[in-house]
């Protein structure tokens, strides 16, 4: 499945798109790959991360300064405390929802982790394009979210519709 996210004619990077499929089998990607939210150059990388419910995310510190990763609003709530260069902490994202990630030492560090109850999800690249691999034939309800959005977009999509167009108002 391919698609593009845009607002008017402007591509919207970091748009997260997922399909309702809570009972889908685990995909190789979500089973075996390490999911990392890196801390480097006083920034989180990537800025937006999408994971399936039950995924453990690594938070390595690859800076020469201490960081204190935390999330206090919606989604997963945690505070990893301070830890030095080369050290790593892990967090299990066990409930769907959006987690806003900050560093309590560096006020301009921020990231998002969107946890979805689906094996079919993707994040749009800088051109707004996204690809969800291995989607079985059928009709799906899709959801889309982006940083700064006040609400998700939802709709239905099937393969016969062609590429999914996510258009932000």
């Amino acid at each position, binding site marked *: 499945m391919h698609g593009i996210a845009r607002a008017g004619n402007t591509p919207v990077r970091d748009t997260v798109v997922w399909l309702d499929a809570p009972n889908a089998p685990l995909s190789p990607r979500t089973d075996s790959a390490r999911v990392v939210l890196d801390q480097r*150059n006083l920034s989180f990388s990537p800025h937006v991360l999408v994971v399936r419910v039950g995924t453990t995310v690594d938070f390595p510190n690859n800076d020469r*300064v*201490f960081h*204190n990763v*935390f999330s206090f609003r919606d989604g997963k709530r945690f505070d990893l405390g*301070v830890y030095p*260069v080369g050290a790593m902490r892990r967090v299990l994202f066990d409930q769907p929802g959006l987690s806003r990630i900050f560093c309590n*030492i560096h*006020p301009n560090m921020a990231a998002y982790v969107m946890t979805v109850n689906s094996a079919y999800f993707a994040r749009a690249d800088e051109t707004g394009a996204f690809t969800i691999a291995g989607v079985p034939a059928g009709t799906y309800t899709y959801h889309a979210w982006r940083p700064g959005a006040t609400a998700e977009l939802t709709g239905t999509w099937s393969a016969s519709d062609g590429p999914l167009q996510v258009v932000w108002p």
Partner: protein
Amino acid sequence: MKFAVLMAYAACFIEPRLAHGQSVTAEAAVTGGYSTDDVTAAAAQVRLFGDVTGGIRFFGEAAWAGRSLSDPHHESDSFNAAYPYTNRVQIIEAYGERMFRPHEGLVGIRAGRFRTPFGIYNASDHAYSGFLRAPLVRYEEYSPLSNNLLEHGADLVVGVPRLMVEAAVGAPGDVGEVRRHSGLDVIVRVQGYYGSFIAGASHMRTPPSKTAFVTGARNHVTGVDLRWTHAGVQLRGEWITGQPFGRSTTTGWYADALIHRTGMGPVTAVARVERLVFGDLRQAPEDYLSRQTVGARVRLGGGLALQVNALHQSGDKEYLPRALDVAVTWSVRKQ
């Protein structure tokens, strides 16, 4: 204030043009503050940092800060947490560094102009943590160590994440009102962590301050620092002893609590107790400096943060016994 506006404007409109694999982040912060010590203050910092080719990173920071002290009959060190208030634009740090991760090891090389790697020294540990004054042991007027000490030289880190040794060699490049004589600097630091504990020990041999009454002697400083963190509570502190003025000895410590439980949302509560002793450790209580601080830092959103400190101090008649410091910082980042 014109400079602060100019720097914020510049940071907002920087559009880095970079090749693939490179990245630059521009950041600006502007702070305004008032203290019941009759001090008003303004400060601004601009930072540029990121990756260049070959895994090399760079970091550069320029700062301006100014204070006005209305009452000529007393002193104040308010708003002196991590930057000098000398009413001049100054380059604080400018360095390049490269990190290697051989197997489970860690090797880091840094060269340029950087903060003296002694104890808990990073600007981010002191500038944004909720305290608006530097610890007494790191205040340049009193101590052999200051948050305004800088090195021109090279720094090497070798070890594994759990235990590493850092060594820096260079020459003093201080930015505060009190500066060291020129000469060779050597700093050695060992740091390790186990679970929630992070411990470090540092030693520095450096030329003495230019205000020293006895010249020619070397300044020796030794310190131990400790951090412990669990469930949103961080306890940290430093103990430092050294000789800033010839053979006189200065010893001091501080202990901080920074509380940020998940239920506290954008609020971080802070508390500090500290002491600084000149000369004989057995002297009477009225002969050493002591201070207790409680406060909070609140993220207001939109890049704004509020910091409030209330403190009580004794041991120096030039300083008022009680003070309330308030500061608002606005910061913006462009990537």
